[in-house]
């Protein structure tokens, strides 16, 4: 399918019209009104942030200090700083003082460089109990900045469903009781867009945030950030997926956030050096035009181009990460998605993103659930979703993946967590740890996509096993042990979570560096910190512990920087200059690092270099580590992965890759496997790999300037200029224990 003209897709019309927009609007009761003079953006910052208390209705403006800019930069940094000040070490995710902070970062909102419209969402996570950050596209963050705010803090809890509206053109904010709108995102985002736009043409100027009904009943809720698709004439959705922030949103009785501004120009960020941004942006646009077809095919396949590559390298999670490939993976390969995605539309989640990976399937007719028979747009699927709700659950049917993808999105749950926790429940079911009795009749065998979908619908309805599974893998493990007499050790081995967050979708068994890349993260195992598998396992570029530690220092910090500035990671290395393989350090893509230095300097007028770029992240990264300590986590015991991510948990897994493991024992561990029973080899392999992991942790802590328990040393904090009294006190207290 190829769209060259406007299309009006029927899905916009197929929503249930219980109430007209006028009726919904009329039912709104203004709870609080606040007027302000929107500050113009200057060099990437407005200099002001918005604070809203949903318990008291208090709305106020805070000033952005120079210290905030110098130490925390913006985006995730601002979010963490505000959250730190809002909560105590005792605060739980559903306490009123927990906040949701959305901040776009100084570069976010420029239109010239692909991937420059991201928002970072920070909150105390219901899954981990500590600070969570999630990077999301859509128009809300940049529009909020163009309406005068570098961040919004949402604190308190409303007792009724509310919508918050920021009118950036008129400097007016209203907190409105909103009883009639739907909760599910594919509907409410349309409704709010129509309600607050002044005309059809004006819908482009409205951006919304919402969650969904499953976020109310689970801890894996996500947020949908909308962007209006002019060609499809519909709102599209991008997800702040990780860590359950959608559950916090619904717990606060937030139904939606809306911002409207017509101040959307190529210069709205008012940068110090627009010419430098133009030059840098055009260079990358050209690079994408010339290289994408030869490299990652992001423009036609999005991130789903990875499916067969991961399967070929034995990295695609299959059956709860037991295996890394499957012959049926080809049923969900890139060429399948390329045909399903509507081609020829500039599918960027922010203006000017010519990577255009926000692919969509149009006219999909739903076959289950409350919207059965509706024709809808499905945003995605992305690789993580195909792998998570697909292969990881033994599901290889593209239609099933699409259906689950759609319902996860509109119900407001994270496809990664949903996939990983469903796969965990399936393995438990296959091992008879749970039966149909516990699941309420769901036959959760691997591959049963109808059961997976029904589980999802039960999450949305808050029913039975849907609520139990919706607590996430960590709490399921406890529940199964307590209530069903399961063996906690086996569950610990196969439950793919660390710090309480479900693993994202890469098998890390054969890459020690990636085992650390996942488990040594601040927020939990998410690939946006480090993806070192090819460097480590395929290319063998980081053979020693010191090499791996260096990579686990540099790459998490480099990637953290995107979150400070409101950028997407993908244009960094999902397209590369043709001569990149010949550059000094190809894995870093030096020319693109230089681009980012130019973007930051071009926007802010500062003069950083590539080393200072890393230092900027190091401050925030260490701050976040101390934040974890403050909340009762952040030490070595919390950095240990489940064995499923390190090696074969079961004999079945060992046997399936027997040759590889035998060879590994011989060559790496110095153990002759000949004559040994599989059980013995399996045990020896585990002992060796677990020891290797601990040695890696030692090396990484050393490189990061942390002590052997993973606590940042005082000199590290001092050297980074973040030895604030509260941080020093937190670190000292923890060390004294």
């Amino acid at each position: 399918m190829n769209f060259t003209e406007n299309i009006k897709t029927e899905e916009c019309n197929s929503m249930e019209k219980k109430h007209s927009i006028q009726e919904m609007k009329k039912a709104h009761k203004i709870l609080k009104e606040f007027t302000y003079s929107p500050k113009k953006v200057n060099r990437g910052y407005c200099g002001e942030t918005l604070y809203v208390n949903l318990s008291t209705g208090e709305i106020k403006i805070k000033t952005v200090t120079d210290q905030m800019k110098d130490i925390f930069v913006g985006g995730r940094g601002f979010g963490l700083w505000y959250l730190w000040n809002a909560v105590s070490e005792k605060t739980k995710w559903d306490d009123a003082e927990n906040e949701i902070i959305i901040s776009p970062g100084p570069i976010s909102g420029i239109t010239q460089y692909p991937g420059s419209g991201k928002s970072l969402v920070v909150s105390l996570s219901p899954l981990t109990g500590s600070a969570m950050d999630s990077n999301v596209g859509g128009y809300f963050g940049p529009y909020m900045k163009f309406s005068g705010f570098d961040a919004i803090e949402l604190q308190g809890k409303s007792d009724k469903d509310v919508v918050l509206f920021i009118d950036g053109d008129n400097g007016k904010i209203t907190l409105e009781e909103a009883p009639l709108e739907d909760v599910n995102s594919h509907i409410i985002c349309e409704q709010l867009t129509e309600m607050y736009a002044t005309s059809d043409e004006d819908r482009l100027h409205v951006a919304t945030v919402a969650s969904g009904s499953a976020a109310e009943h689970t801890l894996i809720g996500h947020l949908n950030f909308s962007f209006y698709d002019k060609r499809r004439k519909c709102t599209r959705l991008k997800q702040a997926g990780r860590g359950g922030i959608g559950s916090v949103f619904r717990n606060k009785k937030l139904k939606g956030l809306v911002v409207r501004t017509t101040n959307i120009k190529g210069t709205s960020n008012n940068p110090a050096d627009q010419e430098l941004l133009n030059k840098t942006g055009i260079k990358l646009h050209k690079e994408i035009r010339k290289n994408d077809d030869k490299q990652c095919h992001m423009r036609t396949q999005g991130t789903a181009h990875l499916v067969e590559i991961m399967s070929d390298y034995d990295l695609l999670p299959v059956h709860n990460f037991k295996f890394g490939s499957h012959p049926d993976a080809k049923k969900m390969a890139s060429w399948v998605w390329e045909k399903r995605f509507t081609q020829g539309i500039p599918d960027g989640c922010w203006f000017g993103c010519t990577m255009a990976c926000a692919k969509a399937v149009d006219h999909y007719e739903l076959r289950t659930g409350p919207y059965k028979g509706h024709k809808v747009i499905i945003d995605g699927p992305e690789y993580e979703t195909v792998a998570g709700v697909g292969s990881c659950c033994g599901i290889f049917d593209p239609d099933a993946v699409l259906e689950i993808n759609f319902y996860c999105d509109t119900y407001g749950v994270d496809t990664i967590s949903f996939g990983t926790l469903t796969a965990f429940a399936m393995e438990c079911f296959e091992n008879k740890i749970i039966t149909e009795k516990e699941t309420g009749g769901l036959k959760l065998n691997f591959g049963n996509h109808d059961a997976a979908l029904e589980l999802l619908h039960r999450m949305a309805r808050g029913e039975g096993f849907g609520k139990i599974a919706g607590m996430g893998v960590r709490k399921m493990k406890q529940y199964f042990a307590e209530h069903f007499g399961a063996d906690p050790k086996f569950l610990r081995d196969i439950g793919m979570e660390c710090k309480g967050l479900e693993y994202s979708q890469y098998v890390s068994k054969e890459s020690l560096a990636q085992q650390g890349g996942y488990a040594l993260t601040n927020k939990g195992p998410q690939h946006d910190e480090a993806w070192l598998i090819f460097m480590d396992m395929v290319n063998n570029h980081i053979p020693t512990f010191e090499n791996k530690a260096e990579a686990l220092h540099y790459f998490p910090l480099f990637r953290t920087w995107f979150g400070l500035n409101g950028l997407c990671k993908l244009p960094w290395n999902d397209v590369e200059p043709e001569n990149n393989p010949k550059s000094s350090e190809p894995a870093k893509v030096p020319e693109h690092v230089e681009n980012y230095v130019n973007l930051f300097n071009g926007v802010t007028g500062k003069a950083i270099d590539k080393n200072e770029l890393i230092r900027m992240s190091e401050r925030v990264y260490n701050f976040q580590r101390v934040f974890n300590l403050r909340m009762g986590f952040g030490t070595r015991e919390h950095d240990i992965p489940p064995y499923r991510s390190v090696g074969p948990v079961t004999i079945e897994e060992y046997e399936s890759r027997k040759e590889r493991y035998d060879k590994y024992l011989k060559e790496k561990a110095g153990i002759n496997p000949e004559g040994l029973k599989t059980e013995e080899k399996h045990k020896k392999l585990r002992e060796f790999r677990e020891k290797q992991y601990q040695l890696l942790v030692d090396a990484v802590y050393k490189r990061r300037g942390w002590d052997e328990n993973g606590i940042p040393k005082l000199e590290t904090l001092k050297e980074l200029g973040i030895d604030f009294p509260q941080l020093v006190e937190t670190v000292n207290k923890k060390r004294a224990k």
Partner: protein
Amino acid sequence: MKVKILGKKTDICVECHECERACSTVFFKTESLERARLRITAGQPSGRKITTCTQCGKCINICPTQAISRNKAGIVAIDKSKCVGCLSCVGFCPEEAMFQYKDDTIPFKCISCGQCVKKCKAGAIFLTESEIEA
């Protein structure tokens, strides 16, 4: 449809740049080669290049805000009020005939007005018609 486009005969161009001056004068009231909607790259004889828009319309699909469209005469034109300055069209033009000047974020392109043709004594550029799928 038949669309008026700027034709070129690169080999007879004398690189006087009068066409670019004429163009920038018409649209930007200044004689600046960088602000012309066509480009003569000097380098006779083999390195010479005349960059002109073929009105192919690939930029129409690239534009996220539908600021670029084909008018009734088939000419591809930019509606500045809708442009958000992303410059995607500049990077994605197969002819590299979508231009942009320094810190200005609004791109510009040839609309086959023919003002440059009048100034070309060599006859290296001329208006012609091309069949375009629209």
